[in-house]
């Protein structure tokens, strides 16, 4: 488990690689209730969007990003903010690689310990999605960012 005092700017997260199958794309669309055709209809994706296959939708990418971050922080990690820009589609058949590095570590006025990160999602070395995130981690063994509410939680 990550605590605030054992994280420093420059720390690198373990990479994650996922072979994206059509099932991932369709299940990602279904679990986020996104029925735009490019996420389940190959003909539409190829003929209309001019990509090689159906591709991951935006909310599902946010889900993968949260999962990648909390794999690293452990269950007390609580996402505050995530911003991402998609440069190219992540299609069924692609191997999606997640990499990340800590950019800053800080504590806010309420005592919440924050970690800022830059993430890259790549396919065959090309950047598919660039992301910055801010996640709260415990400042001590008995702290839990999930216990913060109201003015004490400033994402």
């Amino acid at each position, binding site marked *: 488990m990550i605590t605030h005092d054992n994280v420093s700017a420059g720390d690198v997260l373990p990479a994650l690689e996922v072979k994206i199958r059509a099932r991932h794309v369709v299940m990602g669309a279904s679990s986020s209730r996104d029925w735009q055709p490019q996420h389940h209809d190959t003909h539409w994706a190829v003929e209309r969007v001019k990509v090689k296959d159906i591709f991951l939708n935006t909310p*599902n990418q946010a*889900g993968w990003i*949260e999962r990648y971050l909390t*794999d690293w922080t452990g*269950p007390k990690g609580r*996402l505050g*903010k995530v911003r991402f820009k998609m440069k190219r589609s992540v299609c069924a058949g692609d191997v999606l690689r997640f990499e990340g590095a800590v950019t800053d570590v800080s504590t806010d006025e309420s005592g919440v310990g924050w970690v800022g990160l830059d993430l890259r999602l790549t396919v065959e070395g090309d950047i598919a999605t660039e992301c910055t995130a801010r996640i709260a981690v415990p400042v001590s063994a008995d702290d839990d960012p999930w216990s913060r509410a109201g003015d004490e939680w400033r994402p």
Partner: protein
Amino acid sequence: MKTQPRVEDWIGRERTDPPGDIVCERGYILHWLEATENANPKFWDESSDIAPPSMLSVWMRPLQFVPGRTETFMPLSLHFDLKEAFDLPDGVVSASEMTLHAPVRIGDRITTTQTVRDISEEKTTRVGTGRFWTIDVTYRDQDGEVKGVETYEMFSYKR
């Protein structure tokens, strides 16, 4: 002939949609964890009533079929109104940001308010000619508590 819409008439426009069709429930949370192969015990623990924060936008997406409903509600309806007004049939999300406030819990029913923050001049990119715009979506629960704010930057275009 259709009159050209004026950008200044659209900036600041706000719309509150009816409460979402989906009430936050465990089956959806498990489906999300399944789709992202997420083993986080915070959400698998049966005593936990918290949805993964990244699920925020799930709770506003309407059912595709409801008995007696003749029109399908569109999530991000302002985006689709803008596409229609500016006659830009295709659209992509170019960037998105989520700020996550109070967690969404099992039993919560979410209402969203959308606001058009800005609209660009006409631009030509690799995919076509159109406009970038930014829409903020604020998510609140049945008690009015803010659960999160999502900002979508979209490019809508014509080939």
